[in-house]
């Protein structure tokens, strides 16, 4: 049985939702897609505040940035023409590997990044794309960089009654990126996620990002690998070395699905492959 929901409210505006969440914050639960609520089966009794109709569903872009409403689903992003503009289609390509198509209709941007399960697909993408996370309570608003937001389990930095309202991603036309996922089946939870991105400056990498997730407790930028790649041209040797550096510096988690040692060996290969893929120099099928 899912959580015992004593009351289910569907506010019509963000203001109203925030006001409701501010009342007796301990007893409320914000419902985005609702998946984690159903699956958690938390024994507590809660009042549910559904965010479906509070105007956070939109995906929009300006010439400088893409804005993902917190209630947009992964499926919405995949089918959004605006979202494909980021880093040569990184978002739809990567999100297509997340869960199954019907479940992607239930997973929202806000739910995915706030819960930040280790296998979640959006958090490493947002890190690699220098996203900003926008939050609000009934009293105030704030904006955090993805690096700040994911520096700890996001739940821990969120205040009572606080919501993620949207996420913005800067649009840089020359940013290239690639994504790799290692898992048992197409919609399995990832064992390893790797996202790389960089600004292509006449063949040289500028402002590179190397992000590792699923095999770490939180999605992580690997600064050592990024520093190594700055100003370099992508070739097999550079990619291999970056893989080596990443696998050396990341603190990996092992569990019953795969040992930390195995993940280390494979992470090296995946970083290497992601870099070559980003540069269109993929040598393997």
């Amino acid at each position, binding site marked *: *049985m*899912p*959580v*015992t*929901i*004593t*009351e*289910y409210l*569907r506010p019509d505006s963000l203001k109203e939702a925030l006001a409701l969440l501010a009342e007796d914050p301990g007893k409320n639960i914000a*419902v985005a897609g*609702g*998946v984690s*609520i*159903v*699956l958690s089966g938390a024994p507590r009794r809660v009042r*549910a505040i*559904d965010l*479906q109709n509070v105007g956070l569903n939109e995906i929009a872009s300006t010439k400088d940035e893409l804005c993902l409403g917190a209630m947009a689903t992964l499926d919405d992003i995949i089918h959004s023409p605006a979202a494909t503009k980021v880093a040569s289609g990184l978002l739809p390509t990567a999100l*297509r590997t997340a*869960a*199954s*198509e*019907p*479940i992607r*209709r*239930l997973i929202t941007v806000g739910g995915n990044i706030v819960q930040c399960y280790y296998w979640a697909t959006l958090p490493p993408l947002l890190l690699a794309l220098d996203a900003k996370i926008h939050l609000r309570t009934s009293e105030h608003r704030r904006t955090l960089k993805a690096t700040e937001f994911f520096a700890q389990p996001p739940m821990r930095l969120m205040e009572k009654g606080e919501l993620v309202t949207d996420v913005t991603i800067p649009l840089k036309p020359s940013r290239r990126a690639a994504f790799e996922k290692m898992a048992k089946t*197409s*919609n399995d939870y990832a064992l390893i996620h790797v996202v790389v991105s960089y600004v292509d400056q006449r063949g040289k990498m500028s402002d590179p990002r190397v992000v590792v997730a699923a095999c770490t407790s939180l999605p992580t930028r690997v600064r050592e690998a990024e520093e190594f790649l700055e100003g370099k041209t992508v070739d097999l040797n550079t990619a291999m070395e970056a893989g080596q550096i990443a696998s050396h510096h990341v603190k990996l988690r092992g569990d019953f699905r795969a040992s930390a040692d195995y993940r280390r060996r494979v992470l090296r290969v995946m970083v290497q492959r992601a870099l070559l893929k980003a540069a269109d120099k993929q040598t393997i099928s």
Partner: protein
Amino acid sequence: MKLHVRINGEARELEIAPGAVLGDVLRQLGLTGTKMGCREGHCGSCMVLVNGKPMNSCLLLAAKVEGAEITTIEGLGDVRNPHPIQEAFVEAGAVQCGFCTPGMIISTKALLDNEPHPSLERVREALSGNLCRCTGYAKIFDAVRIAEHKLAKASGNGKSTRRPHRP
């Protein structure tokens, strides 16, 4: 609490527990073609269309579908008047135990409504939320292909079997 939905074309006002999932609500209405195989969003035997889009009714809070149009397997056709996709599954040998079949057909329906001629890759993706332990999937892919042809033929005759929907 009250829930207002259209189920298989019929407007309903239902009294539900606020924490109930849609699949349980539908089954309690006697719509038992929607199966509960895992209650963790993996097997897809609970798949129903919500405003034309397949969703796992075991993970979907019923309260979230207020105002929605729900289509279950019973809404597609019955033994006397089956939907072409249902016929296709039988013809192809895609039905073995049949427990996953309603969910598979629901996913197929949504796919073919939106993409009348999907590639095999798209078929794989659109069905990736449905598990089958009996068939090895080969005959299910055949069924989608047969259904595609049946539907194309039917719409060619001007007899559209597809229900238009708005996302």
